[in-house]
């Protein structure tokens, strides 16, 4: 079978226990994105129009970047300290290991996304035309995208130094091309077609859509679905990078 609940939950539970011993990390995960949103709202104090259009897309980007970093470092640590090799020498499927990770950090992402979205809506003056839970949903899917890409990226890093640099290497180009700085239609055709391949483009577009749509359009759902597909593909690729045996 592809998925074993007991082994997957064992991995999830272990990661959450590890996090529970690390209060500072937990605090940073929850406080940093809220702080950034607050800073943003203050920056645009005199330009509410601008704030209302830029805040939701950034709400997609902050949790994604944070989850990307945390996940890639956590997985890399497991690779370098030998525990990954030990775990894979035991009767556990590779997919259980990856899903266990995705579930643990996914849970953290749910809490993070809900908190940031709620604070932004209630206290920072973020307004969207669509239902509020859509903001939470999209932020969550984006955070999961960060988790999945982080898991995959860590396979290509040999040290923490390398892993940290995957953030500018993998996330920054997506950030530049996602349509927030320059709309896709004003980019050179070639860049636009590149941007159309990247997941963050769809995440940001979904956020932009729900700020103006009272009822969620099928186009928005399609965007969300594309991001989810990226999450699934990255997780599957991530589990393929795990090696039980070496040459």
């Amino acid at each position, binding site marked *: 079978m592809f998925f074993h609940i*007991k*082994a997957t939950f*064992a*991995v999830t*539970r*272990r990661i959450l*226990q*590890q996090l529970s*011993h*690390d209060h500072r990390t937990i605090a940073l995960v929850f406080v940093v994105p809220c702080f950034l949103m607050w800073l943003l709202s203050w920056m645009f104090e005199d330009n509410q129009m601008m704030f209302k259009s830029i805040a939701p897309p950034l709400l997609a980007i902050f949790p994604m970047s944070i989850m990307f970093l945390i996940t890639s470092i956590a997985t890399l640590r497991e690779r370098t*300290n*030998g*525990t990954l*090799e*030990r*775990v894979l*020498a*035991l*009767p*556990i499927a590779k997919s259980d290991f990856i899903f266990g990770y995705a579930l643990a950090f996914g849970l953290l992402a749910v809490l993070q996304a809900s908190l940031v979205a709620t604070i932004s809506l209630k206290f920072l003056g973020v307004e969207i035309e669509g239902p509020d839970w859509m903001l939470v949903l999209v932020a969550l899917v984006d955070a999961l995208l960060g988790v999945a890409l982080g898991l995959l990226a860590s396979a290509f890093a040999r040290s923490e130094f390398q892993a940290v640099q995957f953030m500018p290497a993998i996330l920054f180009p997506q950030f530049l091309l996602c349509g927030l700085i320059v709309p896709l239609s004003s980019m050179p055709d070639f860049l636009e077609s590149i941007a159309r391949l990247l997941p963050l483009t769809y995440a940001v577009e979904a956020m932009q859509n729900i700020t103006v749509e009272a009822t969620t359009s099928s186009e928005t759902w399609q965007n969300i679905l594309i991001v989810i597909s990226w999450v699934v593909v990255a997780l599957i690729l991530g589990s393929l990078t795990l090696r*039980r*045996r*070496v*040459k």
Partner: protein
Amino acid sequence: MLEPTVSVSGLCVRKNKNELLSSISFDIQPGTICGLLGPSGAGKTTLMRAIVGIQIPTHGNVEVLGEKAGSKNNRAKIGYVTQASSIYLDLTVAQNLKFFARISKADKQSVDRTLKIVHLYDKKNQLVATLSGGEKTRVSLAVAMLADPDLLILDEPTVGLDPLLRRDLWKLFNVLAKKGKTIVVSSHVMDEALHCEQLLLLREGKLLWDDSAEKLLKVTKKTSVEDAFVDLMKGDK
């Protein structure tokens, strides 16, 4: 005679043109304590990884418990303790063991049972990061024993342990061997060879000796394993 627990024939491991192990052959019978000795860089760890199945041989065959090394069935039957303790520093001792028990399909009592064996029961709620090096090794050993494996592969498990505890561990290995478990222990402390029924001496990827320690002393006419080893190395050159 029973089928050997470990059967290695013509094993070669090559990495980037370096020959880590060159045509090694030996058998280990069930219920044996087999000592794997040699200086660092001799290939002890590579050989152990080949038996566990993590290292794929360049040439040759490694059969373990009647199956090819690294087979799926063997995963639950082999306990492997690496040199680095390979446990989670940011979990407590008990949390570590419970996690590994869950994924290695060991029963619930196994956690307390193995903790008592390695004398860490009273530290079960302590964070592993706060333990000493020797204690971490013992946690790692406890993890390897959780599923009551038929074969234990221990990479330098006695490094940094106090003499009393070291003696306890060797006693434990003897008890396990009497129950029919097979144990492969690597060490660079030559004295420990005397605890083993079978001795494998390894140097620069070559197997210099595969027999008992007594016979080694007899053949080389030396009184210590260390001297005998030096003698063998001279002969090898």
